[in-house]
């Protein structure tokens, strides 16, 4: 056994020697593998980082939540002549009461929202008023950096308190703690009692929650009713200046469940209730957990695509190695003949040439791993993208590089071993 190990070491040493004899050629040969391995690691780390970000963002919406949102269906759009007509769409009080009766629901938090200009003594900015209930904070996983959220009693008493998003704070109270300060919306004054911690901007590219919640201002639901009523006035963009007035009771229900496993069942109940209560589909049901699963699915596809690209580059690298090994075999025909005459078996010759191709591809693999670890770091540094290098991607790609060396080394090695020793000895 000891002799065997020593034998292998000796063969490897011999391989290294032959490779060092042609430094430039060997280096060029392994470049294919280097790039293949580096791209596997780099692309997987970028993919992993992207899916991590997506997961985190979806988690912010709450994987325990079902979100029902009022949706202004295109059919209800009025013509410009009809400016005075009042539209009516979205979630109703009856919906809320009925949904609340579904078992295994912990909590249904309603919101009413409108876009408003918000001002302080320092300036003015457009934000979104979100009238809601105290449990909104917990259900949406929001954190406060200053002050507190409003309480049930303050909700009941319709206090004009506001909790502002981070961007509102940054614009209206850049240097001071806004708690206790006053903001003005329309002609109403609100006392700021809390500031929400900055949240990563939500997923772009999905229609879902693409708004920047850092521009939200949270007020008690009842306060919203008192000051803003139920009417949503929207400026429809178009060639003609055109106001649209709609009555919307609720913009969102955030349905918080006790148990994630019931999420699809509950969603189907919700859908049934809404289907029977609404004539047109003026609502949409969103399940963050499902989006999470979709994100996972997307990641899987992404990985397959990346994997195929990487596989192609590794195959190309392998062909490069095979090519150079074939040239080496021809070049060293005489040496092979000598070795055979001295007593080398076919197997010895095969081992020798395969070990050389494995050394080539393995070296390429190691350099590729180093490069593959550096590239994502640079990507993160220059683009701010999250990248996550997983240990298994390093192991996988290095193993593949060695496997490529063996696979593409077999043919040249066999060719070397099958040479007729007499012909080989005579080869000039």
């Amino acid at each position, binding site marked *: 056994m000891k002799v065997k190990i020593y034998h292998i070491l000796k063969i490897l040493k011999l391989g290294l*020697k032959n490779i060092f004899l042609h430094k430039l050629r060997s280096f060029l040969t392994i470049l294919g593998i280097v790039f293949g391995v580096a791209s596997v690691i780099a692309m997987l780390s970028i993919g992993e980082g992207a899916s991590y970000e997506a997961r985190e963002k979806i988690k912010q919406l709450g994987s325990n939540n079902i979100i029902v949102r009022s949706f202004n269906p295109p059919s209800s759009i009025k013509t410009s002549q009809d400016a005075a007509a009042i539209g009516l769409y979205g979630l109703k009080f009856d919906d809320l009461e009925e949904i609340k009766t579904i078992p295994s629901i912990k909590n249904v938090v309603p919101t009413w929202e409108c876009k408003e200009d918000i001002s302080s003594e320092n300036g003015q900015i457009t934000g979104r008023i979100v009238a809601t209930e105290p449990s909104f904070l917990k259900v949406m996983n929001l954190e406060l950096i200053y002050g507190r959220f409003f309480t049930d009693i303050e909700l009941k008493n319709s206090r004009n308190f506001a909790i502002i998003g981070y961007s509102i704070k940054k614009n209206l109270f850049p240097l001071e703690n806004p708690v206790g300060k006053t903001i003005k919306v329309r002609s109403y004054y609100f006392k700021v009692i809390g500031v929400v911690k900055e949240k990563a901007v939500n997923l772009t590219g999905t229609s879902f929650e693409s708004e920047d919640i850092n521009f939200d201002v949270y007020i008690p639901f009842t306060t919203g009713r008192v000051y803003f009523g139920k009417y949503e006035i929207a400026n429809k963009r178009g060639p003609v200046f055109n106001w649209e007035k709609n009555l919307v009771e609720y913009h969102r229900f955030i349905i918080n469940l006790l148990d994630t496993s019931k999420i699809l069942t509950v969603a189907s109940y919700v859908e049934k209730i809404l289907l029977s209560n609404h004539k047109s589909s003026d609502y949409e049901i969103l399940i963050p957990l499902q989006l999470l699963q979709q994100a996972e699915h997307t990641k899987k596809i992404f990985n397959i695509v990346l994997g195929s690209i990487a596989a192609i580059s590794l195959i190309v690298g392998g062909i490069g190695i095979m090519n150079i090994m074939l040239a080496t075999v021809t070049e060293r025909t005489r*040496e092979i003949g*000598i070795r*055979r005459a*001295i*007593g080398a078996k076919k197997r010895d010759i095969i081992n020798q040439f395969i070990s050389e191709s494995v050394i080539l591809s393995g070296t390429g693999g190691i350099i590729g791993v180093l490069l593959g670890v550096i590239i994502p770091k640079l990507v993160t540094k220059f683009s701010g993208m999250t990248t996550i290098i997983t240990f298994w991607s390093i192991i996988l790609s290095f193993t593949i590089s060695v496997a490529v060396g063996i696979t593409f080394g077999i043919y040249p090695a066999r060719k070397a071993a099958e040479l007729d020793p*007499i012909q080989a*000895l005579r080869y000039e």
Partner: protein
Amino acid sequence: MSENNNVIELLNIKKIYKMGTIELEVLRGISLSVKKGEHISIMGPSGSGKTTLLNILGCLDKPTYGQYFFQDKDISKLDDNSLSEIRSKYIGFIFQQFNLIPQLNVIENISLPLFYQGIDENLMMEKAKDFADMVGLSDRLYHRPSELSGGQQQRVAIARALANDPLIILADEPTGNLDTTTGKEIMKLLCRLNEEGKTLLVITHDINIANYSKRIIKLLDGRIVNES
């Protein structure tokens, strides 16, 4: 078995090469026995089948017909692996072109046959040094073949042929690429080895070289025409 001390016994060996439809009979029935410790020269003009005979004797090639007894064992039907083993254990080759491996230094070249026997490294290096010493190259151990003269290269080749302690040394025109003086030195070295007990078979077309041996076999057109 012990009644006969023949290392090699050839019985009616024929070698036919097929080139397309043409059959070329290179050896036309060679019978020959080589005793342990003998020094034999094989002579003949080019094309007479000397090298083919040597290749068959050295287990590099197989006869088309006939039987080859190596140490009383018929090896004419053995497979490549077994023949490699015989070469590795019992046969030492010396070539006209020296045939050293250019990337390896002197001691590595000498130890190569031992490497294929899977011998422990320290022992291998020790042995290789001894053989380098024997051929008078102990001060050139780490030189590459390209840094040596022809005579020195052939000495390395001889040391290599000795490394596996073979039963028989087969030399194909060992002085063919050397000047007369160096050739003589090499022949002296080979004769010394023969005196020390090694069986030696030399192929040559030079009668002066052949005259070093007591037994000279002349080949012509694949047949033994004269033996003295």
